[in-house]
């Protein structure tokens, strides 16, 4: 039995390929094989990504894209937001990253610096530090894997499944165990090497050192044999890992960073307008072909982490929609269809090379036209499709930069525009918008009536004002909404702000039409408003409704409506900051603020409403559990305001419960939809005696000491 000569202190370092010198050629061969399998898999995938979907450019503004890649792909900014899974993934990701660098250091020394420059840098203290670091990160990976296994198979959070059923696949287990096994075998090899070579400094490789102590008594020959064995095991597992990447969820190592790089650089939530109404035969997404390739690619970057599902108001209120399920269902459907598409594409390309006739391409196009729509209805259940409130939680929190909402809107467009098959109550809403430019169908000539007797001029009367107050439908027609309009107008008047309204020339902003899939109606409404506004040379606009705010700000520029748009909370916060209005009156009670999705997640207006409330003397403020970018939708966005909610619990009641939970007396809102929904929730929960929902403007008006004039109710007229 040969005992290695104990290495003296001062020789810190290690022999690469110790006990495995002769394996090198075989290893190279296997590596080449693994790489070939990997490259083939990626190539295959590449063909699949190219096979379906319309073209879209997602590689402009490279600088910005690299930044996004660095932040989300490397630093994992979005992943960290959730502590447990964030740490879990961070340990695995950074652990693996460092280990791979370590391996690269080893290889670099062995294959490059030593043979070429006779330079061995993994020596001495550097080696000790390097070893220690590798041990730590190896341990990190192992801890991460254990955390992942524990989470996936023991605690089983709902988001790793759907409605209480985990969606685990064999691949999930294989990947975790594979990584775990690579790390464990790595440690064992190290331990056996340390056991046999026994260098005292390897105490720095503390894990290997600690394991090696366990081999005490083992004879060296056996140890070396075991070492060889585990060495091969380790090598094969590592190579298998590489080869497995394109065929498993490990693909996300490529696709997810790629998706970050290709993320939308457009303003959050803005939708691409349909430009061709006249000649197209189909609108929106009925089949995969109607998506862009990037919209399909999204599904490839999805790791089923379930962050989207965790805050989705539709999912949480018991509706069948889960953003994760939508993305995964699209993927399943894509995987079923893509082999044929790859073949077809190859054929088409070959034909194009050979110079195909127009007749042939027309024939091919016609066969496409005839394809029955499969996405909405078959792949994505219609209840799922219509349950989305467009609240943007999923997109905001997706750690793969997936864009769920536009896909949902595209599929709705197919149902509404191409098939005209959608909820009758939404049809009524659209007819009302068409005929009277408001969702309730109240006579359009009554739009400006709320402002009568307030001394507010229309732009027709005086176009030389600084701001246009775009009132919107709620503010113009809904008795509750009108009070908000009046309150805000009074604030503006008190502050001496120069403003006017459009009166009966104003029209519906069209947000509900757009988000409900009726792009045609939306564009008609937008164009009508733009024509009026541009006619008056409008430059600055204030809205009290975040839906109008968002549409005017982000979507109207597509139709030559380019304005500086403000939400009334921005204006009020500014007036308070500049001392234009004073808030002398203190307000009693506990206040909370409900973030409107279209104000918060869509436009990052989080601080203004809170600043306003904090400026009010005596006001006690408490946050609800779900707030800011994690705020819970009221349930009215995405045209849901106009639809029946017949599945699961009512979203507005759930949100109201969250306000009740923090003992709020007043739920401050900054959106007429939220105001309606929360007010209804308060009624549903029979809390009308104890709780009220008010718009921020109404609260400010109270604090200004200006009483809103109550409508006279004549209790006896006969």
């Amino acid at each position, binding site marked *: 039995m040969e005992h290695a000569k104990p290495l003296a202190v001062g020789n810190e370092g290690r022999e690469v390929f110790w006990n495995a010198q002769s394996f090198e050629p075989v290893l190279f061969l296997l590596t080449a094989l693994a790489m070939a399998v990997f490259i083939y898999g990626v190539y295959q995938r590449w063909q699949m990504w190219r096979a379906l979907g319309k073209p879209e450019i997602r590689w402009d503004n490279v600088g910005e894209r690299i930044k996004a890649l660095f932040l989300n792909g490397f630093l994992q900014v979005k992943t960290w937001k959730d502590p447990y899974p964030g740490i879990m993934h961070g340990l695995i990701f950074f652990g693996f990253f460092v280990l791979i660098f370590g391996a690269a250091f080893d290889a670099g020394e062995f294959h490059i610096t030593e043979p070429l420059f006779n330079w061995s840098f993994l020596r001495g203290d550097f080696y000790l530090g390097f070893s220690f670091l590798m041990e730590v990160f190896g341990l990190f990976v192992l801890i991460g894997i254990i955390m992942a296994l524990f989470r996936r198979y023991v605690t089983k959070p709902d988001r790793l499944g759907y409605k209480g059923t985990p969606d685990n696949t064999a691949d999930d287990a294989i990947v975790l165990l594979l990584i775990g096994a690579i790390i464990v075998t790595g440690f064992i090899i190290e331990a056996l090497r340390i056991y046999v070579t026994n260098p005292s400094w390897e105490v720095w490789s503390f894990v290997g050192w600690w394991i090696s102590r366990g081999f005490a008594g083992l004879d060296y020959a056996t140890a070396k044999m075991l070492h060889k064995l585990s060495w091969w095991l380790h090598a094969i597992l590592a190579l298998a890992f590489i080869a497995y990447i394109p065929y498993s969820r490990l693909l996300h190592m490529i696709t997810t960073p790629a998706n970050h790089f290709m993320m939308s650089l457009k303003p959050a939530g803005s939708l691409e307008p349909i430009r061709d109404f006249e000649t197209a035969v189909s609108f929106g997404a009925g089949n995969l072909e109607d998506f862009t390739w990037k919209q399909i690619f999204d599904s490839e970057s999805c790791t089923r982490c379930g962050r989207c599902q965790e805050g989705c108001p539709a999912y949480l209120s018991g509706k069948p929609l889960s953003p994760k399920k939508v993305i995964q269902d699209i993927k399943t459907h894509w995987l079923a269809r893509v082999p044929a598409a790859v073949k077809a594409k190859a054929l088409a390309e070959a034909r194009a090379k050979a110079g195909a006739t127009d007749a042939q391409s027309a024939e091919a196009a016609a066969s496409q036209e005839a394809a029955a729509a499969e996405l909405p209805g078959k792949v994505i259940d219609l209840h799922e499709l219509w349950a989305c409130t467009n609240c943007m939680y999923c997109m905001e929190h997706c750690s793969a930069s997936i864009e769920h909402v536009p896909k949902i809107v595209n599929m709705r467009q197919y149902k509404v*525009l191409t098939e005209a098959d959608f909820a009758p109550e939404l049809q009524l809403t*659209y007819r009302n918008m068409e*005929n*009277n430019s408001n969702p309730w*169908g109240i006579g359009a*000539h009554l739009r400006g009536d709320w402002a009568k007797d307030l001394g507010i001029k229309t732009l027709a009367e005086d176009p030389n004002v600084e701001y246009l107050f775009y009132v919107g439908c709620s503010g113009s027609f809904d008795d509750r909404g009108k009070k908000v309009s009046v309150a805000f107008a009074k604030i503006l008047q008190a502050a001496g702000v120069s403003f006017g309204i459009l009166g009966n020339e104003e029209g519906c902003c069209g947000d509900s039409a757009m988000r409900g899939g009726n792009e045609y109606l939306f564009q008609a409404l937008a164009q009508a408003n733009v024509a009026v506004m541009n006619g008056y040379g409008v430059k600055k606009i204030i809205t009290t409704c975040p839906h109008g705010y968002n549409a005017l700000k982000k979507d109207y520029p597509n139709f030559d409506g380019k304005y500086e748009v403000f939400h009334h909370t921005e204006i009020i916060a500014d007036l308070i900051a500049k001392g234009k209005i004073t808030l002398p009156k203190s307000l009693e009670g506990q206040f909370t603020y409900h973030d409107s999705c279209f104000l918060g997640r869509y436009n990052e207006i989080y601080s203004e409403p809170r600043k306003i409330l904090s400026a009010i003397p005596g006001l006690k403020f408490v946050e609800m559990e779900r707030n800011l970018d994690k705020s819970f939708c009221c349930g009215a966005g995405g045209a849901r305001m106009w639809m029946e909610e017949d599945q699961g619990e009512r979203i507005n009641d759930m949100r109201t419960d969250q306000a009740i939970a923090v003992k709020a007396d007043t739920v401050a809102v900054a959106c007429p939809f939220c105001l309606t929904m929360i007010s209804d929730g308060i009624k549903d929960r029979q809390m009308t005696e104890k709780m009220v929902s008010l718009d921020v403007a109404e609260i400010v008006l109270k604090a200004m000491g200006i009483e809103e004039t109550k409508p006279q*109710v004549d209790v006896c*007229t006969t």
Partner: protein
Amino acid sequence: MNIIACVKQVPDTEAQIKVKADGSGIEEGQIKWVMNPYDEFGVEEALRLKEKNGGDVTIISVGPARAMETIRTALAMGADKGVHVCDPVLDKADAYVTAAALAAVIKGMPYDIIFCGQRAIDDDSGQVGAILAEMLDIPQLTIITKVEYAGSTIKAIKPIEGAQLLIETALPCVVTAQKGLNEPRYASLPGIMKAKKKPVDVKNAAALGIAVEAKAKVVKTIPPPARAAGKIICGDDPAQKAVEVARLLREEAKVI
């Protein structure tokens, strides 16, 4: 089946109706024009019959140039072709003249069933369907909420005060549609685009050879008496207040 649906363009239900100062009619400037909702039920029923039994649907409208939009709307819903009787001499047409124009058009074409709205929400006359049926010498089924086609006859449900009738009628006939007959469809966008290319035959009064003198003339249009503001019934006794409401409903509102 050869199905005909007659449509009229009317002001939207919510439109503000302003009587001209001289009482000669209403101001049309700001009005949003739509298809008469009852006619829309007729168009929808026509389309459903066609979808079930085959055939084609012809839309006929008597009205000024703008009525073409309404014909296009019906074509967008799925009707096959249109006839537009458009002539300034028909601007003051009453139900009789309108029916005569429709009859003149229809006499020149095959038909199995003709749908009209039970009334138009502008003049609220509710006569055209019946007069048309008389002119074509075919039976009429007015104010119908359900239609069942059975070969050479149709069965229909007609609500009357406190009951409803199940009526059977030989075809061809005129059916006037009442709310409840169906839920009209929302036109698809490809439908709207296709409708622009569907054939619409434009005819004038002379071509139809009809007399254009109205039988019933609106000699004056007058604004309604200002509707009294809502009354809150006074008193402390619920029973007394209830009796007062009943009295007002009977004597003032005349709805019970």
